[in-house]
Each structure stands twice: as structure tokens, then as C-alpha cells.
């Protein structure tokens, strides 16, 4: 029972981990145990209480501290002799450039958002460093291997776009609870407690009389207005009057069931607070973060679904508490899932609106999950996925390309498998990230500004961080710290111009070059002018093609939260999905289109220099082994006699 030294491939490896969250903690532990001597880890987050049930390297006393740093200390306690370098920073920081990435043998992702994943994918491609990518949600998880030129990159397959909702679904015709949440959070909450200068669609409805002058007054608290009166006035306006106004538009309700206007006097007795409540019961402490409408009303259970009356009480109480106890913050609040009072307000407002539209009500717990984009997470899945990442990382270090697998962790077995390996695919030839395929953009060049193009296409769609936009040799836009002042002024002016009026006009047929210097990615976009866009189906007012993202997936389970809930225009949910690792592709029941793509093994001429850990041990055995001999259990290909699958051990 002599102990085998760590494999030489591991011993010499220098690896970069991106993310020290749920997967990251497990991964760092497993890497350390497996003998990885030099690990760098980037994470910009600090530790929160709700991380502690799975991010086991962290304790209560670490709340508020850097994840990367605390994770390092925790692992050094059981593996004191390895080197761990933490960076409490955003992976998108310019310091983490191609040269930085080039120093690593492999990059391992345990990230929580699409944006950062795409960024790391590009840097890995530019630096030509292999990437092992991962994600989990609930009991589901996946691990994939990306190697430039050999396997598909992270962006070769379109990712489901974050779900967004048409403005009018949110403002006028909600049909699901999530629509009510978006309305309560992004419109009503923002209107009452957020920045007044922000545009807000709360009162925008097609062909209606309420002018903006009038509505501005409504949400403003009148001089000397009693707080409860103010609350009731808001209540009656948004749940009563606005619904009446909407009902007047008969066309809207032809094929929909009509909502019911709700007025506070019908739900609550007059002068509620003076009857039973008292403002001071909530103020056991003066700490604004502990102010709670539930507490002051004596309600305890966040799992309970409140009645319309209870929701109405919470609504008025929460509003009162904001103006009473947190007056200073009113005017610059933005919704935060960890802000109890904000969650209470949004839950009650969403539920009252839901009652109005005949949509089932939800508990505070559920509402918080939807409003905060909280992804479901358990420790076990993260541990399994981390184990699989290390297994793939070792194969990558051993350059054992033929045995790379993407692995799905399933909730229900498929073909008897809970862990299902699938051979990786070759790169997608039309991927604009790894194959430089030109894209085309339909846009109204007389109406859309350069700013809209930058925000909606360059940043949102192409995921660029520090873009540079060129028309031929003319620079239209650029971001950077070292720009001349006149250039900055120039670019700022360009941003506000419509495309056709730029110094170097962009019209139909123009070929724009968009570059990200940090990601070392260049895209060519051919511009096509188009006059009209469908407001519902094409809310961006521009359509990018040549690379088609999959339609947003509406998840079956109402509990399951869509990432980046938000609508077009002003109802954009700027909030980042929080600290969990969301899964981009959820393999409920995976079917692999075997014929469509060739598998890696068919294109690889790697001649079995790969000896995995186990193979290395078996090497001294001088018999040709058919290692994949029960391969037909896997349904990745119909072929049962693919000779490339057979592998020799020596």
C-alpha cells in the first residue's frame, strides 16, 4: 500500500479557478486533496449567511469577508503546503488579460452568470488555455471541456437568453405571478422609493388619457398628508383607478378575463392603523435594516400565503415604515432581495395585483425567490460537479483529448445513469466567437442611436466589456482609461447620434467592426436598414442574426426563477443573479442529435498519448484492452462499431 505520488501532470500544473462560491468551495477542496500545488482563485463576492449551507469553507464569523481569501485560509488548514493565490476582484477587471490567462495550464469555472462565463471563454480562447466549465441548479449540474480548435467553445451553442417580458404584459396584461413581481419591483417600488429622475412605465398605457403631469402628482406625497392617507391614495390609484382606466380599453379584454379594480376601503376598515396598529411596535431597534412590516403586524411565517386583506395591511404598513423609519433612503432605493422591508412591500403589491387579475397568490418566501432571481442550490450537487471538474482537468493536463467528456448530473436516471458522460462536440463553424463568422444586424439607422447599438448589441448580445467600434478606419467609439479628453468628448457626442448621422455615417450595407481589446475578440457586423420592428416580438428595435440565441426558456416550475427578469426599455432588471451557479442548459431528458455533429473522437488524430491516472497504472499490463467496451450503454451515437472509440493502453 505504498502511496502513489501525485501524477506528474498535476504536480506541474498551475490552475486558475474563477468563482469561490458553491462550486468553487468544493472545487478548491478537491483540487487541494488531489495534489494540485498552485491554485489561483478569483472572486469578487463577499460571504453572505445564505451561502453557509453549502459553501462549507465559510463560517458565520466570515460573513462580509472576501470569498477568495477566506476559502484560501480554510483550505490551507488541511493542506498547508500548497500555494493558493486569491484575488478579491472581478474577473472582468483589465488586469486579468490574455497574458494573465496564459500562465495557467487550465482554467476552471465555477461561475454564477452568463456574462462572466462568456468573458472567460473569450480570454481562454485568446490565450489558448483549456477551459473546464460548470453549472448547477438544484439536483442538476453539468461539466464541459473547451479546448480551442478541438471542442466547441462555451458560446458555440446558443445559450437561452434571459427571460424578458413585453412592457405591456407587465403594465397592463399580466397573466403570471412573475409579471406581478416585475411590476411591483421594477415599476411600483422604483417609482415610490427609487430615483425620481428615472423613466418609469408605471402609468404608460396605450391610448389613454392620464397625462404624465397628472400622474407625477399622484405619486408625490402631498404637503402635510397623513402617511396612511398617502398609502391609501397610492393603493387606490394603482390597484383601483389604474385598473378602471385599463378596463376602459375594451379591445384589450376581448380575449382576456377582465381584472377587478381593488380599493382599500373595500378590503380594509377605515383608519386601520388608528384602530389597532401602532407605529412603534416595529421599532424595537432603530436599525433600519431590521424594520419589518411583518414584525409590526405580528406575522411570522414567510411560507404562509397571505389573504388579500393581509397583503393590503402589509402594503400600507411597509409604505408607512419606509417613509417613517427609512425616510433618508427614500428617493435612492433600489430593490435588494436581502432588504426585508423591500421584499415585504413587493410581495404584498404583487399579491394585490395578482388578486386583481385572478392570478394565484404566493408566499413571501416564494416571492423573494422570484424577485431576487434566487437560484436553487444544494451542497451535494456542487460537490459532485466539483469532483467531475477535477477529473476532466486531469485529463486536460494529461492531454488525453479522446477521453474528454461533458457530463450531466441528472435528477432522474436516464438509461440507468445519474451521471451521464457525453463526448464533446467539435467547434461550431458559424460561431462568431471562435470562428470569426460575420454577423448581420437589422436596425433602423435613422432612429437608433449609437448608444442603443452599444447597449443592446455590443454589450448585451455580444457580451463585450471594453468595446471599440470602427467603420473602416474611422473610430466611432472606444472605452479606456488612457483616452485623450477630446476623444472622450467626441465619443460621448457620437453615442447620442443616430447611426446614419455619425461622422462616418452607418447605413444599409455598412460593415462595422466591433472589437474587445481585453477579450481579444473581433466581430464584423453587416448593417441592414429596416424601418419597422414589432414592439412585442422585437422589443430591442433591432435584430442580430448569423448567430441565433435560443428562445428564452419559460421554466415549468413557477418557483423556478428566470434569470434577469425584466422587460425591454425601462423595465430592465439590472440585478445580477446572485451567488449561485445557474445552469445554462438544463438537460431534463437529454437527446443528443448524433448525426448533426461529428464527435471529437472522429476528428481527433490524437494517438492515445492520453494515459489517464488509471491507465497509467495499468500500463505495465501488456494486454490490449478495450476500455470502452460497454460503450453502447451510452447513446451518444448509434454506431456500435466505431473503431475510434477503442483505445489502446500502450
Amino acid at each position, binding site marked *: *500500500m505504498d*502511496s502513489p505520488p501525485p501524477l506528474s501532470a498535476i504536480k506541474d500544473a498551475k490552475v486558475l479557478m474563477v468563482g469561490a462560491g458553491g462550486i468553487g468551495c468544493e472545487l478548491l477542496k478537491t483540487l487541494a486533496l488531489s495534489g494540485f500545488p498552485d491554485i489561483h482563485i478569483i472572486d469578487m463576492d463577499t460571504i453572505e449567511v445564505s451561502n453557509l449551507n453549502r459553501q462549507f469553507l465559510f463560517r458565520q464569523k466570515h460573513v462580509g469577508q472576501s470569498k477568495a481569501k477566506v476559502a484560501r485560509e480554510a483550505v490551507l488548514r488541511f493542506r498547508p503546503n500548497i500555494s493558493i493565490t486569491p484575488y478579491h476582484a472581478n474577473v472582468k477587471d483589465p488586469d486579468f488579460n490574455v497574458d494573465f490567462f496564459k500562465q495557467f495550464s487550465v482554467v476552471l469555472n465555477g461561475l454564477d452568470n452568463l456574462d462572466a462565463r462568456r468573458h472567460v471563454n473569450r480570454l481562454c480562447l485568446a490565450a489558448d488555455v483549456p477551459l473546464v466549465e460548470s453549472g448547477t441548479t438544484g439536483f442538476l449540474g453539468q461539466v464541459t471541456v473547451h479546448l480551442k480548435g478541438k471542442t466547441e467553445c462555451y458560446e458555440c451553442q446558443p445559450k437561452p437568453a434571459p427571460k424578458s417580458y413585453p412592457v405591456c404584459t407587465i403594465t397592463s396584461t399580466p397573466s403570471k405571478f412573475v409579471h406581478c413581481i416585475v411590476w411591483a419591483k421594477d415599476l411600483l417600488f422604483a417609482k415610490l422609493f427609487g430615483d425620481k429622475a428615472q423613466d418609469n412605465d408605471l402609468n404608460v398605457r396605450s391610448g389613454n388619457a392620464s397625462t404624465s403631469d397628472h400622474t407625477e402628482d399622484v405619486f408625490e406625497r402631498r404637503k402635510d398628508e397623513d402617511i396612511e392617507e398617502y398609502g391609501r391614495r397610492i393603493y387606490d390609484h394603482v390597484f383601483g383607478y389604474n385598473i378602471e382606466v385599463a378596463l376602459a380599453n375594451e379591445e384589450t379584454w376581448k380575449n382576456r378575463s377582465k381584472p377587478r379594480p381593488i380599493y382599500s376601503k373595500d378590503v380594509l376598515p377605515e383608519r386601520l392603523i388608528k384602530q389597532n396598529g401602532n407605529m412603534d411596535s416595529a421599532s424595537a431597534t432603530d436599525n433600519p435594516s431590521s424594520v419589518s412590516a411583518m414584525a409590526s403586524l405580528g406575522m411570522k411565517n414567510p411560507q404562509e400565503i397571505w389573504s388579500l386583506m393581509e397583503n393590503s395591511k402589509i402594503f400600507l404598513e411597509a409604505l408607512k415604515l419606509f417613509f417613517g423609519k427609512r425616510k433618508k433612503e427614500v428617493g435612492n432605493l433600489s430593490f435588494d432581495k436581502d432588504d426585508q422591508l423591500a421584499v415585504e412591500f413587493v410581495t404584498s403589491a404583487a399579491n394585490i395585483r395578482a388578486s386583481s387579475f385572478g392570478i394565484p397568490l404566493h408566499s413571501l418566501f416564494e416571492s423573494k425567490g422570484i424577485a431576487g432571481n*434566487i437560484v436553487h442550490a444544494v451542497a*451535494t450537487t456542487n*460537490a459532485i460537479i466539483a469532483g467531475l471538474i477535477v*477529473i476532466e482537468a486531469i485529463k486536460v493536463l494529461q492531454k488525453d483529448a479522446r477521453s474528454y467528456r461533458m457530463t450531466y448530473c441528472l435528477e432522474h436516471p436516464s438509461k440507468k445513469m445519474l*451521471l451521464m458522460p457525453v463526448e464533446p462536440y467539435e467547434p461550431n463553424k458559424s460561431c462568431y466567437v471562435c470562428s470569426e463568422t460575420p454577423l448581420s444586424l437589422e436596425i433602423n439607422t435613422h432612429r437608433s442611436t449609437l448608444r442603443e447599438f452599444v447597449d443592446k448589441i455590443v454589450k448585451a448580445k455580444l457580451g463585450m466589456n471594453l468595446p471599440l467600434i470602427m467603420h473602416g478606419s474611422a473610430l466611432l467609439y472606444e472605452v479606456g482609461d488612457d483616452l485623450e479628453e477630446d476623444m472622450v468628448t467626441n465619443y460621448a457626442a457620437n453615442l447620442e447620434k443616430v447611426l446614419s448621422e455619425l461622422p462616418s455615417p452607418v447605413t444599409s450595407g455598412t460593415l462595422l467592426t466591433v472589437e474587445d481589446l481585453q477579450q481579444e475578440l473581433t466581430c464584423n457586423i453587416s448593417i441592414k436598414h429596416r424601418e419597422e420592428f414589432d414592439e412585442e416580438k422585437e422589443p430591442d428595435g433591432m435584430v442580430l442574426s448569423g448567430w441565433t440565441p435560443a428562445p428564452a426558456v419559460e421554466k415549468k416550475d413557477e418557483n423556478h426563477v428566470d434569470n434577469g427578469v425584466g422587460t425591454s426599455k425601462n423595465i430592465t432588471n439590472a440585478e445580477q443573479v446572485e451567488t449561485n451557479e445557474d445552469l445554462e442548459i438544463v438537460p431534463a431528458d437529454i437527446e443528443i442529435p448524433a448525426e448533426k455533429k461529428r464527435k471529437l473522437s472522429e476528428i481527433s488524430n490524437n494517438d492515445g498519448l492520453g494515459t489517464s491516472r488509471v491507465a497509467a497504472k*495499468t500500463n505495465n499490463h501488456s494486454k490490449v484492452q478495450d476500455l470502452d467496451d460497454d460503450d453502447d450503454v451510452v447513446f451518444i451515437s448509434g454506431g456500435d462499431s466505431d473503431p475510434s472509440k477503442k483505445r489502446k493502453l500502450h
Partner: protein
Amino acid sequence: MDGEELTQQETELYDRQIRVWGVDAQRRLSKANVLVCGMTGTVAEFCKNIVLAGVGSVTLVDDGVVTEAALSANFLIPPDESVSKGRTLAELCCDSLVEFNSMVRVSVEKGDISSFGEDFFSKFDVVVISSCSLATKKLINEKCRRLLRRVAFYTVDCRDSCGEIFVDLQNYKYTKKKVDEAVEFELKYPSFEEAITTPWKRLPRRMARLYFAMRVIEKFEEAEGRKPGETSILDFPGVMKKRQELCEEESFNESQIPDYLLERLVVGTREFPPVCAVIGGILGQEVIKAISGKGDPLKNFFFFDAFDGKGIIEDISNPDAAS
């Protein structure tokens, strides 16, 4: 359930997992008592998972002392000799585990698991044993089965980059939501003894080979009076002979248990940390399912081999055995 509410502290800490399995499941977890025997790297992973999940209590049994092998895959053991000197593996792991979740009671039971009486086992809802001899596995499993209350029994073993889990939930009833109605399911599990005495010829043709290979190793170790994992390459001829014997008894084709697989299991007695994470994770998930009554539990073997990356469930029960 009985309407007891989770404390605010619990709701806050377990928020993300309650979103996965619900409040009822969380309540059941917080009342479950788990016994764990054999502090291997895989078991350390498992313990971490269920302590984080918030079970009621975990009791650890392992009087072994720290060795290099024990240390290699177990992150619960501090490498500092001044800390570990004179203490058992169970004690050291216990010290680390209590830090993970103050709401879980973690304790140590000293002694030889095979000498513990039925009374002892009746205190638990779940029993997990690892690195035990074939005889001990059978013995504990039988003791658990004789109890009036149902005790979920698991064995888990990792060798080289392979892992095996065995599950015995006896008669297990659970409900599942199908569309709108709750449908009741019942699974009848064989005991460990019943499962492994199922004639090999009667098993499905496409069985995980690891199953047979593990039985060969198990029988070899038993015949030679070895402790689990006490093998080396020198034993390979003996193991091959054991394979031949068993295959003859079972009228089974020897080529179904490849040499290279047996060799890996004989030589690679040291655990492989990534596999510990995978197997410890799957086992954690299964124990959580069995306690919470949520989800389809696996029946009754699980195999993982890092070599091909497959994690396979096999149902190995003798259709003739009276259950």
C-alpha cells in the same frame, strides 16, 4: 407534519435548499439521526454534505488513528501531528464537522461496530458503513433489519477511481406528485446478503462490471482474512484465481470481469479525492431523499468509475428470494 415551524435562523441558513426540497423535508431532516462508521475520504465528503443539509445528529464510529492513507483523501483530519496525536479518526473528524453547522449534533461512539447490539442501532434513522468486511456488512444490515422501526442502511466503498454504494431501505413507501394528484409508490429492497447472492446468470446482461469485480475482491479479502483495502499487486494472481472460482460457481464468463479492472481495484487501494466527492455527493443526496421522502431513491446499487465517467444505478435483487 406536526406544524412545528423552522426557526428564523434555520430559514435563513437553509434558504437555498428549502427552495429545492421544501420546508417539510427540511423539518424531517432536522429530526434525523445518522450513524456513520469508517471515516474514509468518501465518508468525510458524505458527512460534510449531511451536516450542511441540517440533519439532527451524526454519530461517528472509527477508532483508527491517523495514517498517511487516512489523511490523503480526508479533509476533516488536520495534518498537524500535535493536534491529531492520541486521538481517533472519529474524534478528529467530529471536531471539524461541528464547525460546519452549529445546529447539528455531531458525536463519537467508541468501540467495534460489529459488537454493537440491536438497541444501539435502533437509535438511528440512517446507518452508513464503509471499509468494513463482508461479514460486518451483512451483520449490521441484519441487525438493522430486525428492528421494529425502519432504519435505512447504506454501504459505501471507493477503490482506485471507482466507487460503489449499496442501499437497503427495506419496504419503502413514498409519494410523488404526478400532474395534480399524489401517487403512492412502494419499493421492496433486498438485504445485502440477498442482493449479493442473486445468481449472476440471472442478472441483466448489461450490468456494471464493477459489481462483479467488487464481489471478487470482497470474497478474496474474506478468504485471506484481509482488512478491506489490504491488498497489493502481489495479490493479483490470487484475485484472478478467486475470479475463476466464482465464475465457475456462477457459470459466468470470466471475460465479463476484465483483468484491468481487477488490477485497478487490487492496486489502487488509496481513494481518489474527486471520486470521493462524487460518491459522497450521491450518497448524501440519497440519504437526504430517504429521510425527507422526497424524490425517487436509488435501488439498490450505484457505481461510478472515473475511467468512463458513468454513474450507473443497478437494481440487483433476486426475483426468487422471498421478500
